[in-house]
């Protein structure tokens, strides 16, 4: 029997979706008699227990600490303490800015096997094999961890499909409020970026590229995206010109739209760099006046035409 220890994440009072995806990742490995334990850490950790009570979880440990939000020192100490107590074979963490703050330290101190940004998991006999990318996402690399009693992995978001099936795992409470942090918060500064939408989590994206020609035309696509209930994104030239925030840029220089199900590319030719951020999307609709545009090679539906005419037709449809 193996024990899997999973660490949930929350931010500003809400459980992050990746927490449930990590639970889904664990299901790829577990056998019938294995045990999946999810730890949720924070001043009000108990608030997240209900959301974490899903199929595949055997136990939830609600760890009460003195910090409302994430603190790398506290998380490192708490996870170390839990690992000493549970002696897990596998520890799964979300691959996020939070885990970047303590996962490597934890692995080094414990001399555990370690891999980050993992998107594939399996057992080859008794050997755990984790898949991640290498050479700037050009190749899949399979890693095993010979001689390691425990392996710590951070899991790439938007890869494993979270279950919606609820369950009733056992719940225990640990009080670790005595664990302090080496750092002190002097002031809380609101991130306050130009945009509060995380395009890696949305499922319908309308994206614009050089084909829109000038900045004034951005407005009509913003309106159309709003009418269609889509999130407006863009290719690099648009963000580099300051026409849309950098946070809306899809591609190698921007973001990978991991959760997107429908991607409507308007006036995007489809550079390799742009396609690196969206070519995995199941339904890609490309609109471009150039029939030779590379975007058509990955599109499920292609329209060779003027994006402004298509925009007009779509607008009339939504009106």
């Amino acid at each position, binding site marked *: 029997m193996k024990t899997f220890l999973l660490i949930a994440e929350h931010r500003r009072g809400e459980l992050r979706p990746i927490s449930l995806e990590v639970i889904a990742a664990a299901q790829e490995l577990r056998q019938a008699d294995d045990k999946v334990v999810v730890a949720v850490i924070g001043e009000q950790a108990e608030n997240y227990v209900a959301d974490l009570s899903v199929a595949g979880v055997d136990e939830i440990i609600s760890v009460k600490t003195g910090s409302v939000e994430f603190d790398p020192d506290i998380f490192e100490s708490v996870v170390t303490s839990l690992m000493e107590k549970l002696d897990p074979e596998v520890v799964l963490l979300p691959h996020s800015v939070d885990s970047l703050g303590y996962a490597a330290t934890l692995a080094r101190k414990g001399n555990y096997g370690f891999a980050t940004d993992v998107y594939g998991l399996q057992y080859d006999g008794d050997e755990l094999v984790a898949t991640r990318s290498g050479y700037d996402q050009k190749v899949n690399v399979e890693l095993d961890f010979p001689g390691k009693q425990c392996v710590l992995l951070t899991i790439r978001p938007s890869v494993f499909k979270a279950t919606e099936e609820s369950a009733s795992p056992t719940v225990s409470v640990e009080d670790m409020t005595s664990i302090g942090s080496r750092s002190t918060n002097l002031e809380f500064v609101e991130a*306050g*970026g130009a945009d509060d939408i995380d395009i890696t989590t949305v499922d319908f994206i309308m994206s614009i590229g050089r084909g829109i020609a000038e900045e004034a035309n951005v407005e009509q696509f913003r309106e159309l995206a709003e009418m269609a209930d889509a999130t407006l994104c863009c290719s690099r030239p648009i963000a*580099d010109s*300051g026409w849309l*925030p*950098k946070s809306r840029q899809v591609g190698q220089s921007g973001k990978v739209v991991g959760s997107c199900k429908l991607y409507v590319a308007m006036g995007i030719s489809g550079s390799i760099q742009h396609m690196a951020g969206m070519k995995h999307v199941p339904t890609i609709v490309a609109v471009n006046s150039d029939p030779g545009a590379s975007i058509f090679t990955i599109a499920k539906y292609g329209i060779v035409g003027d994006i402004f005419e298509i925009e007009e037709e779509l*607008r009339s449809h939504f*009106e």
Partner: protein
Amino acid sequence: MPMLFPPDISLPNSADALIDCVINSGDLHSAAAVYELAQGEQKKQLRDLLCEERRNTLLLARWEHTPAAVLQMLAEIDDETVRLRLDKNPASRAGTLNTIYKNSGHDRQLLCLLTQHAHSSSTLLKRLAMSEDDIPILKSIAAHPNTDANTLMCLEKHYPGMFDNELAVHAETPTELLETLYQRGNCFIRSAVVSHIRCPEHLLDSAFNETDTTILRHLAANPRLDSEKLAVLAQHDDVSVLRTLAGNPSLGAELANQMIQNSSNSVRRTLASRTDLTAENLQRLVDDDDHWVRQWVARHPKLPDLLLNQLASDQNDEVRRAVTRNPQTPVDILRQLAEDSSVWVRAGVAYQKNTPADVLSTLSEESDVDVLSGVASNPNTPQAILIRLSGSQQTDIRRGVIINPQAERDTLLPLLEDPYYLHRLLLVSNPALNDNDRWSLHDDPDLSVRFMVFKWFAQKYLQL
């Protein structure tokens, strides 16, 4: 990675020396870059290098940057897979496509791709229209922008009604054929005909009596409508017709100003970008309840300063942002908006070409990536700030410096070693750098950077 070029090799001082340098290196992508420049024995050596291994030939036949001259050379190779890849490559020119056609052996897949390729000539398309009877191939010919009027008429003659969708929108479709299409077509075909640049006047008159809103919407967009018809359409009750009419450049000031009171937001949004509105109506739009209307009017090129000032205090962030993007916005309003609570508004100021250096200096102290990218790419930003931003940890900010047309050589030099290959690629053609600076990238680990360096020098010698 093994070194392709000898260490410390200096900038070649002639085209021959440049090509010899490539031949000695054996670097495939550099060879592709200088191929067009070479003559005689050097060209043969480059051809041998490019075609030495089949996998390299296949790679070049598909690569989006492969120069047209290399693609033409590859078209001569008797290899069907290579031909297929060339046929799909958007960079293949008409000559290459003609060669593929000559050697195609009537391969249907190849012919189909030829009829879809943007560079297929009207002569080739005509020849295919005359010799083929495959409907998808003929459909592609009917839709191809290079197909001439005679070929379109020929297709209609032999396959009447088969290609109406393609013919109705084709720019070369003759007037007589448009009339036929209008008579027999459905509402979408008739809509396309009334939007067509060659649509005869009497068809516009007929369309005016249509009841279908799709046709009327397309009619309302036609700038050839006279004022009388425009006035009648302005009374229509369909929003999409009115909105399209509002964007018609021939609408005229009087009608536009009448329509400003329309209850539909989308009609007023479209009107808000017109340059023929009265001062009174601009004021009305500035006070509009719909924030999209105010956003549109905030970008209006003739909006008086007083109204820009009013919109600069608008409660909606996007409206204030639109003020920052108006090229006519005065500096004092930009100064005010540089202290706006919304970072997206401040980013708008940072990107605005009229923002003075002192405001940009203040904004450069911020931490937001959009604000700093705007400062980095703004031509008014002082060089000292660009130097500081060129050392940013954030890729987007460093790229802002690279694309800044005023960034000086000393500012850019450290970026030649930028970890992001795209940045090094962009620097190859930067006019602030000299040839020795560019040459320092000739042995770059990234193949596309090496290719761009050699292509840049090859183009230079070709233009001599």
